[in-house]
């Protein structure tokens, strides 16, 4: 299991577009579960509606938990995505 935290710097937070791309990225690692947690609430990153429903805003810190056969690569890809886009 890989875990890491990220503090969102994008001024409008994880809104529709980045949420869609993030979900798509997470889905590309089939069999690996990527969870995102904010304020005690945890959702599966591939579930777009729930991910948007978390309402992650600028300045919020989120915690990722990546578990599965591809966890190493998935965690790296997601961390890079967050840094580049959010």
């Amino acid at each position, binding site marked *: 299991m890989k875990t890491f935290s990220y503090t969102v710097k994008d*001024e*409008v*937070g994880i*809104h*529709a*577009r980045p*949420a*869609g791309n993030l*979900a*798509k990225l997470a889905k590309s690692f089939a069999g690996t579960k990527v969870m995102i947690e904010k304020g005690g609430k945890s959702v599966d990153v*591939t*579930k*777009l*509606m*729930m991910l*948007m*429903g978390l*309402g992650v*805003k*600028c300045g919020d810190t989120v915690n990722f938990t990546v578990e599965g056969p591809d966890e190493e690569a998935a965690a790296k890809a997601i961390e890079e995505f967050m840094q580049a886009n959010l």
Partner: protein
Amino acid sequence: MIRFKGKGVYGAVAIGTVSVFKRQEASVRRTHVDDPAAELARVEQAKAQAIEQLSEIYEKALREVGETHAQIFEIHMMMLEDDDYNESIENIINTQSVNAEYAVALTSDNFSEMFASMDDAYMQARAADVKDISNRLIACLSGGGGEQSEQPDKMVVCADDLAPSETVSLDKERVLAFVTAFGSSNSHTAILARNMNIPAVISAGEEFLAQAKDGMKIIVDGHTGELILDPDEETERSYIEKQKSDAEKKALLQQLKGKPNVTKDGREIKIYANIGGVDGIGGVLANDAGGIGLFRSEFLYLESEDYPTEEQQFSAYKKVLESMAGKKVIIRTMDIGADKQIDYFNLDKEENPALGLRALRICLTRPEIFHTQLRALYRASVYGELGIMFPMIISVSEVEECIAMCDKVKKELTDEGIPFSDKVELGIMIETPAAAVISDRLAPLVDFFSVGTNDLTQYTLACDRQNAKLERFVDTHHEAVLRLIEMAAKNAHEHGAWIGICGELAADTSLTETFLRMGIDELSVSAPFVLPVRQAVRNTDLSK
């Protein structure tokens, strides 16, 4: 001839024929089904059809508005395939033995409510996306799902509101403009209108929709948000003129949109817009301003019969902050007095109102008015990037009083558990010679200065700006005024503050180079000047 006013989201004048948008929104009835499995199969089939339609719209959007904005339809497809959304539909069908249409409608309500109840304008707008995909799914279930049927040419589509997919599906060849009775400037629909270069007016009100009938002639002014149904000849002619001059300006606008405000040798400056009310936001966005450098809060007081309440002010500030979606918004505390008199303030008649009890002086004399405004501002601060600016400053102690009042308000809000942003910038207007001269003492107290050149000129030159006979004595480029600005800029930078200009001089492109050389960080001009000033900046080379 009937006139209406909405909010312009994309500027341009269109003269065309009303076409009331007819949505094939089948009203959904709840019926009992004996075979839930058959309903589930229908959902699967409708979903496949809906996704196919969406991918066609995506392709169309890709060609017409570009990838960034087309992505929303890709997201719509993903939303349609979302596990939770689909599980909810399945559960409702299985547990209640109801028809698929009803299950989709109920799921749509639940998910859109989740988004609508979030305290974030961007996410609230997602409620419309959920409804959009659900309506498409229902239309496919009902065997429909087709797009608009026969329509006239040169049509102005009038609707209660348009979903993003409906907006993109409009035939750009024949749609001149669209008008919606509701809608927010944050919605994807408004954003798409701007990117499709279609003049659009939103929030026209229910009455407009009641009056607009198919085939009526209509004038839509996307700059001002004005709508004229059944115009007379003279009015129409004046708008045709306006269209012509627009077309010329537009050539300039189009080239400069999205480009940075940077000189040939690489110095960048911010260009913001000045507005006097919430309805100016459309113009700010349409002209590609980087933020709002001066939001005049007086309109709240001028439009009201009595002191505007904290709630009234809060909702106006919240709206402007949300609409600007994270771009800087500098709100100036009320500047009443002088040429802006209000009965309910019961101010004494003055010999010299310009030198009288005005603006901040009223606020410091009647702290309850100031207190209400600051509370509303801090409460709204969580919805965007707020700057608060105090006008008519002449002394250090006034600035200290303002800051103390802000601290008091912040403490109250903290005690009451009401959130506010800790990134609110505080600044002052440099519009009296006194403030410019002691700017070295004022700068350490604030985050920014903004030069109000109209008053600064009037006070420095001792020339009443209302008096037309003084025109020959008023040199707007007077060296004294420019030296004061330069002095303020130097002092601001020495103490880590930034400096902008929000008076009319900011839009004077013959001074743009002078301001750049002084190191001015921001110019705030009325919206139509944003792009001309950008052009002046881009033509400047400071290395020469």
